[in-house]
C-alpha cells in the first residue's frame, strides 16, 4: 500500500475514533415519496375517474367520506431532527465525571421540524374527480440548531 494511501487511511480512522460518541446527531425520517405537480397533470376535473388516478399514482393512503363525495389523500412525511449534547466533552477535561451518572449533568439541545406534502383528490358519487389540490408544508422540515 503506498505511503500516501496508508496515511489517508490512518487519518480517516483517527477521525472516526475522535468522532465516536460525538455530541452531534442529524437524524431524518421520510415516509413515502413526494408526488409532484407534473405527476398529476393527467387529472381533468369532471372527466378523470378513480381508476385513472390509481393506475397512475397507485392506491391512496386514505379514503374519507365527505358530503356528496369522497376525498382520497396521498401523503408524504419528512422529519429532520438535530441534537447537540453540549456537556459531553466535559468528561474529556474533567475525568472524574466518568463516574457520575451522565443524567445528572448532561444537557442536550435539539431542534427539528416535521413537513408534510399531500395530494388531495375529491370524487363525486360516480367516482369522477371534482377537484384536486396539493397541501405544501415541506419547508417545515429542517434541521434547527
Amino acid at each position, binding site marked *: *500500500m503506498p505511503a500516501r494511501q496508508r496515511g489517508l*487511511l490512518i487519518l480517516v*480512522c483517527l477521525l*472516526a475514533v475522535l468522532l465516536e*460518541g460525538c455530541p452531534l*446527531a442529524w437524524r431524518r425520517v*421520510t415516509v413515502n415519496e413526494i408526488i409532484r405537480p407534473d405527476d398529476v397533470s393527467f387529472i381533468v376535473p369532471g372527466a378523470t375517474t378513480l381508476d385513472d388516478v390509481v393506475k397512475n399514482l*397507485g392506491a391512496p*393512503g386514505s*379514503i374519507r367520506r365527505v358530503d356528496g363525495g369522497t376525498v382520497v389523500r396521498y401523503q408524504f412525511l419528512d422529519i429532520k431532527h438535530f441534537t447537540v449534547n453540549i456537556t459531553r466533552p466535559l468528561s474529556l477535561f474533567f475525568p472524574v465525571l466518568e463516574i457520575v451518572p451522565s443524567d445528572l449533568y448532561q444537557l442536550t439541545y435539539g431542534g427539528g421540524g416535521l413537513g408534510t406534502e399531500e395530494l388531495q383528490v375529491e370524487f363525486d358519487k360516480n367516482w369522477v374527480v371534482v377537484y384536486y389540490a396539493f397541501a405544501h408544508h415541506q419547508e417545515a422540515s429542517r434541521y434547527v440548531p
Partner: protein
Amino acid sequence: MIVARSLLLAVAAATLVQGCAFFRGNYDDDFKQEDVESIKIGASTRQDVANILGAPERVIEVHDKEIFHYYNYTVKSGTVLFFSRTNVVGNDLYVFFSPDGIVQQVILGRQKPPPKLQFWPFGD
C-alpha cells in the same frame, strides 16, 4: 509485510464500522398478486375476501358501501457515526363492496418501489 497490511486493514475496518447500524423491517406482508387476482369482481363476498386477505386493517363506509382497507409498510434505516436516515414506504389495497356485500372494485394500483437504504440525512 502482508501480515502488517492485513492487520492495518482489519484495524481500519473495525474502527470505521463502529457506530454504524443498519436495519430493515416491515409491518405486515406484501400483497401477493395471486391473492389479489383470486378476488372475483361481482362474485366474491366479504367473507371470501376476509378468507383470502384476512381481516382488514380498517373498514370505511362511503355512500352506503363498505370498503376494506389493507396496508403494509417497509422500513430501511442506516446510521453511520452521527448521521442517521430512516425511509418508510407504505402500500395500500382497497376492496370496494356493493350494498349487498359483493366485491365491486379492487384498488391496488402500481406498487411503490421499496425504500432506499441510506444513512446520509441531507439532500432529497
